[in-house]
């Protein structure tokens, strides 16, 4: 009886060619994955993060006074720290003190005090590994800049923004 099929040599050659092709794909994929790992999580593509940053930016731009960063607010409930920013702002014709509180992971709180009335706005949908830190930054003749940085769970910096109060006249 005659049985047709592959010879061992045919099979080996075919599999070797296909194996080389698969190996190329795996190598390429691994290289891509390794390269992607170098990049931080793109927090800026998150709508809640963008909302928080744009609102914070506006508050800093509207900062008002010789030193617009009081040491505390809310009868001492909040104090300036790397997780809490307190700003005196000039908004809508009036002065108000704004507190930005990043102490709770995955949340950003904005509490504004205007003529004794506190108004709170909370962004609850931030990424859980969004770790924000606030720092002071100084440029020549302008000592009151704010720098907000955020790193992802692996400590890679994803956000680094310097905000400067605008000149009020």
């Amino acid at each position: 009886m005659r049985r047709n099929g592959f010879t061992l040599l045919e099979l080996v050659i075919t599999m070797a060619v296909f194996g080389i092709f698969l190996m190329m794909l795996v190598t390429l994929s691994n290289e891509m994955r390794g390269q992607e790992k170098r990049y931080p999580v793109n927090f800026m593509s998150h709508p809640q993060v963008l909302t928080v940053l744009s609102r914070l930016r506006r508050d800093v731009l509207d900062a008002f006074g010789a030193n617009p960063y009081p040491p505390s607010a809310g009868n001492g409930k909040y104090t300036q720290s790397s997780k809490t920013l307190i700003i005196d702002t000039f908004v809508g014709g009036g002065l108000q003190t704004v507190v930005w509180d990043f102490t709770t992971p995955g949340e950003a709180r904005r509490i504004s005090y205007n003529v004794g009335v506190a108004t709170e706005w909370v962004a609850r949908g931030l990424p859980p590994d969004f770790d924000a830190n606030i720092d002071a930054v100084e440029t020549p003749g302008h000592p009151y800049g704010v720098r907000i940085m955020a790193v992802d769970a692996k400590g890679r910096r994803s956000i680094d923004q310097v905000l400067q109060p605008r000149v009020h006249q």
Partner: protein
Amino acid sequence: MRSQRGFSLVELLFALLVLTIVITTTLAVFVERTRRLRQASETILAYQVLANEAELQRRIPFAAVVPSATFNTDMGLLGAMQPVTTSIDVSSTQGGVKNVTMTIRWNRGQREAKLGIVRVDTGGGNLW
């Protein structure tokens, strides 16, 4: 007894060719998607650095706004994109006005992000 036949080598190679085309196409789509996502991330990182440098260039004394090959702000955000090159170009079309263009180039100069501001000499107030 009935004859038992398998595939010929040509049939096998043809099947593998079809499989190769399918895998390659799928992977190409995946690679392109990843590349575009990475480019978007890079652009966002680059423009954060550009905006930070713009904040500085807006505030330094008017006379200190000069061309430079380096930024004065922290470039740590661009760590994953290294090597990057930067430049600050300053041109003036009329007295008391400077056009400042900040540029970041990366991916061997194939990609770049630019941000321009106009500085006006306000006599020391650093308004713009």
